[in-house]
């Protein structure tokens, strides 16, 4: 067990940080990298259409 913790301490650390972040988002009604700021939608100007 001691060896396992030594080898995977970074994975365990990252897991704790990421799981906390994920659960906080879930509780706060948030979605990762999503916000409510006004986004000016623009058509892509798809290349194929202009052929």
């Amino acid at each position: 067990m001691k060896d396992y913790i030594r080898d995977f301490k970074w994975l365990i650390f990252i897991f704790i940080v990421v799981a906390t972040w994920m659960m906080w988002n879930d509780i706060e009604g948030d979605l990762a990298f999503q916000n409510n700021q006004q986004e000016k939608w623009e058509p892509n100007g798809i290349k194929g259409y202009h052929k």
Partner: protein
Amino acid sequence: MSAASSIQECPVCHQIIIWSNSQTVINRCESCKTIVARNKDSRAKQIDYSPVVYKNAALRIGYQGSFSGNPFRITGRVQISFESQTINYWTTINNKNQIALLAEGYGFYTWCEPITMRASITVGQLQSGNIFQSFELQDNVLAILEEKEKGYGFETDGECWFPFFSQKLNRYFLQTPDGDSFVVLAAESENIAAFKQTDIPVEQLFKTGTTASFETRQQPCPVCKKELLLKAFPYTKNYCCPYCKNGFYVETPFDQQKAFKADDSDWGRALQPGQKGKIDGVDFEVIGGCLKQEEGLGSVTWREYTLFNPLRGFLTLSEYDGHWMKVTDNPTGRPCAEALVRDNLLFNSEPFPEFNAYSFRVLDAFGEFPYNIFSTSGMNIREFISPPEMWIQQFNNKKSITWAHGTHLSPKHIETGFPGAVLPTQTGVGAVEPTGYINPAKLIVSTLTAVFLLFLLHHLGTIDRKEVNLITQRIQFADSSKVVSFVSDTFDLPRRKNIVSVDIFSAISNTWVYANFRLVNVKTGEEYNMGLGVEYYSGVDGGESWSEGSSSSNSAFVKIPRGRYLLQVDGEKEKPEAGSYISLYVNYDSYSNRNFWFAALFIIIWPVGRFLRDRYFESKRWGEAFFEIE
């Protein structure tokens, strides 16, 4: 007078000889120093065996210790010079007057409890037995023969028990797959005795802070006659004269044979003879060193230094390309021969893949050695690694399969332990240099476990979401208009923080439709804005049909506080077109895996990076062999 009597008369000087135990069989007259023996039916008789001449040992007559909680005292010893080692068999007597032997040599202390061996095992069978051959020593105790060696001397000191007396006594070491070890001592005339061995850690046998000191032996070099100082006698089995560079094999302290002629080459010794230092807090002195070369390849050489502490025994420091390793010969809990499966050693459930296999020769040497370094004929070495550890198997099919255990040491460790050491420059990756390598299978299993746990936590955190539909609406554009507006009925968002998802669809072709959404809190007037559009294009180009974009799209308002809201929608399209519309679906308390997927992505980054890094370092360590073992 029977053997059980406590007092007998010396057959030479007729003074009394006191026997403290009824089972002891050898004693020494305090008056005339004659060595006498007794058996069950006779008086003490003089026997033609020598007293121990070189008495260096950590234990001594009168020493009191304990084994498995039973106190014992030492009354005497028999010292035997075997081919590759000298062992003291100390006679111990416990409080119940039971006798056992305590073997000492090279810093190892092994309790030898006499056992009754199956009568069918004979001296001849063991003599002709092959290394790896199994012997059923007792019922259901199947042990593998791992060492056999001849003994050349039999010296005694004090009052001893020994199963028999012989100047030509062979030693056989056997081990069961479970790790139980046995030693069988056998001589001519069917004299044979077996013992179960248990290693006793130094810390258990001696009080903390105990030290031992050895007397230095001064002797002339057998060839050049210059005076030599030997510090580990009688455990030294090889030494090399620093003047004439001849190497000698010590069969017994009285029989030394020339066995080697050193090259006297300059190989940049990092440590010098007589240099004192510490390894892992234990004081050591450098008493020998040698330059070894792998047979066949011609260019691979490495250096080994022999360190000595009278209580702890010997330690070898091995150096190759500036990478250091401390090596202990025949350590406690060594692997059994059966632990070898093809090219892997499985030790304590840890796989040790074979790293190297070779034979070697000694090019140069200085000082003394506890083992026969000059006898390399027929010796094959295999190295098995699991950094920072290495198991080194030394196999001679006629004599023995023995093991040495190596552990990586950093140059800083050597520099600190031996101030003044001249350390060579380090290159490449060492054989057991710890690089933090993690088995890929272990990495995959751990990562998948972490991702699974993450999913479980996410699922538990969102299990109460209801996915309630707030608006389902088709917003129709007027045929001649490019814009449209819509205002929803009010609706309640009951949670402290809410997610409101918005999905739109429009049956479009080669055009776009856009909508701006305003979520308005009817009580506070607070607004949240979002733009969402769809575009879809298709056609035929060069005889091939193509399409790009999509007629549906979705997004979400997040972290919306509790309250009553309405949704305002302002739609826009590229050009007026009959029948255009936007289908709108708005839900709250929506279930989404977005948080989980991003979290899982972050989790995976470390194992992937770790795998690539390990692969880089291991390919440097193993060279081309790395791709063969994958």
